[in-house]
């Protein structure tokens, strides 16, 4: 075993690194732009040089790079402090859905500007009545001449306020069982009747929105898949979600815990010498290291041209609760000062407090801890689903509590 690139991979890494060294913007005028403007500027720069969405086919703006090359590119680009999150949902989840389900004309129209960052997309799935049970959604689309008219409410929509388009799952037939009465459309987020309201989170930030649809007209050509086939199309999007989310858990890692525990004292000795503190740090390191090397095992599979196993499904289920537990423990070590969130006064400029306040969101977004555990139990271990009381019943007759 070794952690080295193959010679082909090394050549690709060198090429990517050289281009980045030449082109990654670091100047003051770039830094003065808003994060979204920075992201758009950088994305367009990559697109023009053939370094945007490199895994995509050339006709959509990519270079048909292999999965391992995509990883190498992300590692190299990650060395620079450049904004990238604005396009994750559009490029990571929605583009694969368009590639699989859209007609050729729409693919040619929408994929290149999605790759170049000139158009941003969002995902309109969750509803007040349907989160973990996504297929229980109630937003409806009704026939209106040749087209459709949408009415209802979506929630937890990231980036709706700066998106140009969105993909939406709606109910087109409430008289059939819930999964069978859904259809999937793309919508213009600037269309009349679309109203976006930011949600203020418990952190005080607003990363998500509520999106209201009031008599929003969409053409039938904006439908992906057949009428009633929306659930299958949505699965294409969701299957790509875990690849797009996963990722890191910010600066809350063991090296931060070590530096905090080294500076604080318990009974006149560094906290880092305390057995209980050491045990907790060791446990987090086991998790951190376990996730890192699980990633290396998956990369090896990609490097050998095969598909990674199911082991990557543990990432969010381990990482998000770990972030919360670690933040909670370190705040506790700080004593009453642990409550201080003021960046100027707090230890580590308030990173720990922000992590603690943000962690509940991570444990819920993209599948709660409980749903992730169900997925592992069902798809990896082969355990049966819970019996469902709404199975085979027309959606309109399902109990709603």
């Amino acid at each position: 075993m070794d952690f080295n690139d193959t010679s082909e991979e090394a050549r690709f890494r060198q090429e990517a690194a050289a281009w980045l060294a030449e082109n990654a913007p670091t100047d003051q005028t770039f830094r003065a732009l808003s994060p979204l403007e920075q992201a758009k500027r950088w994305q367009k720069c990559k697109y023009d040089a053939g370094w945007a969405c490199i895994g995509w086919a050339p006709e959509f703006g990519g270079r048909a790079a292999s999965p391992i090359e995509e990883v190498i590119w992300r590692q190299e680009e990650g060395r620079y402090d450049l904004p990238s999150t604005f396009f994750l949902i559009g490029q990571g989840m929605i583009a694969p859905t368009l590639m699989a389900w859209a007609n050729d004309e729409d693919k040619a129209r929408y994929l290149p500007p999605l790759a170049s960052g000139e158009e941003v997309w969002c995902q309109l799935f969750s509803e007040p009545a349907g989160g973990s049970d996504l297929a229980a959604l109630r937003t409806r689309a009704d026939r209106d001449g040749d087209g459709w008219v949408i009415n209802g409410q979506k929630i937890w929509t990231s980036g709706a306020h700066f998106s140009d388009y969105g993909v939406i799952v709606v109910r087109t037939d409430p008289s059939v069982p819930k999964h069978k009465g859904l259809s999937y459309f793309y919508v213009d987020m600037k269309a009349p009747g679309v109203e976006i309201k930011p949600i203020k989170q418990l952190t005080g930030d607003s990363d998500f929105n509520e999106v209201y649809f009031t008599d929003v007209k969409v053409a039938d050509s904006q439908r992906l898949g057949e009428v009633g086939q929306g659930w299958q199309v949505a699965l294409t999007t969701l299957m790509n979600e875990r690849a797009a989310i996963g990722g890191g858990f910010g600066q809350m890692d063991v090296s931060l815990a070590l530096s905090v525990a080294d500076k604080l004292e318990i009974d006149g000795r560094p906290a880092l010498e305390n057995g209980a503190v050491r045990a907790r740090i060791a446990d987090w390191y086991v998790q951190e290291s376990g996730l890192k090397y699980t990633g290396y095992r998956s990369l090896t599979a990609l490097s050998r041209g095969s598909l990674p196993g199911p082991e990557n499904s543990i990432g969010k289920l381990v990482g998000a609760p770990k972030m919360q537990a670690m933040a909670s423990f370190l705040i506790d070590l700080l004593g009453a000062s642990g409550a201080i969130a003021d960046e100027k006064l707090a230890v580590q400029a308030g990173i720990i407090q922000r992590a603690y306040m943000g962690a509940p969101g991570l444990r819920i977004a993209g599948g709660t801890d409980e749903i992730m555990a169900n997925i592992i139990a069902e798809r990896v271990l082969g355990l049966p689903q819970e019996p469902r009381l709404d199975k085979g019943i027309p959606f309109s007759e399902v109990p709603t509590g």
Partner: protein
Amino acid sequence: MNFEFSEEQQLLREQARGFLTEYCSTSVVRAVLDGDEDWDASLWKKVAEMGWTATVIPEAYGGLGLSYYELAILAEEMGRSAAPLPFSSSIYLASEAIRHFGNESQKSEWLPKLASGECVATLAMVERAGRLVLDQLETRRVDSQITGYKVPVADASVADVAVVLARSDQGLEACLVPIKQEGVSIAPVLTFDTSRGHSAVTFDRAGAQALGDAPLNPADWERVIDGAAVLFAWEQLGVAESALIQARDYALQRFAFGRAIGSYQAIKHKLANMYVKNTLARSNAYYGVWALAEGSDELPLAAATARVAAIQASTYAAEENIQTHGGMGFTWEFDCHFYYRRAKLLSLAIGGEAVWQDRLVSALTEQTVAA
């Protein structure tokens, strides 16, 4: 990135699993657990014929000269079948100590016999309850005689030679002590895993020689223990996998309130947690065996990480496997207790969870300082 076993190594795994499925079914484990024997001697002979005892011993001493990757694979399969064999005592610990510290004549005398499996060795380290402190060992070597008391010593009753950790005027020593001699007396000690024999061993001016020609550097000793920790981790991972599979199979087949208990989220989440811990343990065990096989400076950190992860995964899986089985899991008749016993036993040899959490953080801070 090449962080995976080679095709040849994967073939070895398949072969080992097939072999142990045939010759080390749970009835073999049960026979030793129930009976008076401390091991399955005929299984040991077969394992030796397969060359497993010779895996990492150099060819010059009658071994196969293979890498720790191969040995890690065999260790996992040993754990998977809860084999009633002195594999860890003889191979991960004693043979490694002789190989690392022995002088030429000691290596020539013992390694070929350990490689062929005709001799079994063990390590006698612990003298009393609590955390082992090398400075406080009371077993003493004076000239060519050793005196002291070691308990518990795994597999002493089936061993031909023991590596005994002792002190002399020179300081810390690993002494080579043939077991079958006048000054060595062995009394059986009942443990909670009687599928492996344990003893109290008294050395009364027994013939002994220190391994090697120079005093033992405690840091070098810890290096050997780190290596053993990686191999123990792989064996524990095998135990953890067997416990998970047994729990999964039972959850599919056992019905309550009209449906398989595996369809209840309370059971699903328990099994998902086992899978998560086993996956973390496996990936950390990869890290451990990489560091061991490649002679990396990261071995202390990698070994401790692999060891802690494996202790946590194997004890959790073994405990919750019984819980998943309900009352039947608590019976002697069901096999669940094999993994419960073995997971805990393997988690105690060479120091338990707290010891290795502590070593992990020490290695982490030292490595951070070095970098």
